[in-house]
């Protein structure tokens, strides 16, 4: 049974992407921060940390994605596991995200207030979802779908996410198939 289960655990669903959407056509160029779109720089990692933290922020009950070093995680996965086309979309997506921020707020994403970041990425998420609804098989993925997926995966499989946001039991020692659950009890990590 476990070998069959493994399939669903390792296959991560990626959404689709937007090409040439008009949101990017009237955007200003990034002004102050130079973001690389061909490699992961420390600036990019800090940027991705911020994107991740906006998707999964620190809350009363647990630290956010930044505490799970989500930017570094995205770098490793995109560099080692992504196909070339997706790598390019992802890296260019960093620039696109910032351009879109400038277009909407006349500010780099990093300079937005926490509320603005949430508002902005919420809109971007909806846009990505809309794109994915009509995305044909094999069409390019949406960069924000990648960032969101990587944030969820990287966070909940990290030590912080697994042990603080979820419940991780290394060696359960027993199996109980049918026990009560109370609203608020955390999910098992794996």
């Amino acid at each position, binding site marked *: *049974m*476990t*070998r*069959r289960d*493994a*399939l669903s*655990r*390792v296959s*991560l669903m990626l959404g689709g992407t937007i090409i040439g959407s008009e949101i990017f056509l009237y955007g200003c160029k990034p002004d102050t921060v130079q973001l690389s779109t061909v490699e992961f720089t420390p600036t990019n990692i800090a940027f991705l940390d911020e994107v991740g933290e*906006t*998707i*999964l*922020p620190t*809350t009363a*009950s*647990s630290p*956010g994605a930044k505490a799970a070093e989500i930017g570094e995680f995205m770098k*490793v*996965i995109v560099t*080692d*596991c*992504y196909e070339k086309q997706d790598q390019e979309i992802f890296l260019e997506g960093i620039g696109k995200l910032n351009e879109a921020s400038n277009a909407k707020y006349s500010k780099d994403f990093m300079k937005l207030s926490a509320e603005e970041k*949430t508002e902005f*990425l*919420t809109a971007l*998420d*909806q846009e990505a979802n809309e794109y994915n609804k009509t995305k044909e098989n094999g069409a390019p993925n949406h960069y924000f779908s990648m960032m*969101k997926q990587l944030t*969820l995966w*990287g966070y*909940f*499989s*990290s*030590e912080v996410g*697994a042990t603080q*946001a*979820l419940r*991780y*039991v*290394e*060696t*359960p*020692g*027993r*199996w*109980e*198939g*049918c*026990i*009560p*659950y*109370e*609203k*608020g*009890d*955390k*999910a*098992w*990590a*794996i």
Partner: protein
Amino acid sequence: MADNVFDAIVIGSGISGGWAAKELCEKGLKTIMLERGQNVEHVKDYHSALKPPWAFEHRGTRTQKMIEDYPVLKRDYPLNEKNLEWWASDKDCPYTEIKRFDWFRGYQVGGRSLLWGKQSYRLSDFDFEANAKEGIAIDWPVRYKDIAPWYDYVERFAGISGNRDGLPQLPDGQFLPPMEMTCVEKDVAARIKEHYKGQRHMIIGRAAHVTGPLAGRTLCQYRNKCSLGCPFGGYFSTQSSTLPAAMKTGNLTLRPWSIVTKIIYDKDTQRATGVEILDAQTNETYEYKAKVVFLNASTINSTWILMNSATDVWPEGLGSSSGQLGHNLMDHHLGVGAGGDVEGYEDKYYYGRRPNGVYIPRYRNLFGDKRDYLRGFGYQGGASRQGWQRNVAEYSIGANLKEALTEPGSWTMGIGGFGEMLPDYDNKITLDKTKTDKWGLNVVAIDCELKENELKMRQDMMNDAAEMLEAAGVKNVNKWDGDGTPGRGIHEMGTARMGSDPKTSVLNKWNQVWDAPNVFVTDGSFMTSAGCQNPSLGYMAFTARAVDHAVNELKKMNL
């Protein structure tokens, strides 16, 4: 005794090889077990077993480099970061696919006993009699009553957890306590039973896990990280079970890195005298001699060795006199099933990670049911609550999304079919004399496909799955018929079938090669038909039985 002379040689150290070594050693035979790959020491070499999920650089997933290096393994779940060292290298060990065949191999001490799914089911007379009744291939030379005591014997030692369900098509065994179903599974099982008036059953999986007292073994800890090697020895593997028993006798020599290239055949005595090996590290050739040889290199590889042992007496290979060697390759076809959402049960959960699921034994073409295809299928599956991977429609990003995902989601239930594949002469393996592996050895060519019977069956496998789940109240049921390419079941069987007549079979009813009776083939190669049950438990039973026969024959000076 010269240091290359033994009483017995066992080729391969997986599920059946481990059993052969244990039984031979316990009966007092000095035995050498030859394994083509590296040694894997119990616990010490389970490098990933105690790593938490976040300690894997890529969290377990495959990299582009791995995809490039493993053109076959990449076709399914085995290509992953956590236990890659236990899957054979596609580049070092290529094979020829006349038709696509996904061959996932484990070349190390323990073989795929380290990696297996552990589902353990008995065949019944519905299976042993099917070929004869339907005029398919040839009759099995045995019946359930011949094998039942050996199932008892191996279950008591291996440790099989399960429930006594009283189903004639899936005989009960010597079980350790069953694992519990989840709340949803219990109710779905009850509804299926009611809806189908007791003609269909959903039972807890029978699995090779220690769930109660078993000498020398430790209880399953419900970590569900079995395929990384279990530091507790909670599931049956060569390392946890048969190897220590064989070692304890003082009669076993284990030699890793030993690729058996041929069985040496003496035409005067019509017996094998030993084997020739290639040291996989040094490329040196060695010979080992013994009175009896057990061939347990895994289906396809065991027949490869027989084919590679061709002599002027048997130019098509040892055991080829019937013309059946290499033919009738089978697997279980899968990748078809259904799943959906279960409403309610929000106040129910579970504790631990159960390395097992539920099982729906075969019901088609049994007890008066008659379909437009032969044989049948079983299902494996389970019900659980969704985790953070689920889609939360009401939240986009931010604190609400995060808080929602820290709690378990709703219940889902899914089942996937395991279908019987008929033995077919045209599904075969041959030696490819145009291609060699890393060691310069000719590779095997595989020519195998699903035929009409399997394709018809898959319609039922998909539709029945959806119908049963819907009958049990599962909502939004999705059904799928995905990739049924042979090999993906990782239940390769046949190519050296057993039978009653040397003219139509490779092995006799004791797993002896008709053409060389001191050679026993007791891995999946001997299967005369496939059943739809996970087959490994049967290999254990037939192996123990064959060793018993071999030792009796040796005593009578018949070998």
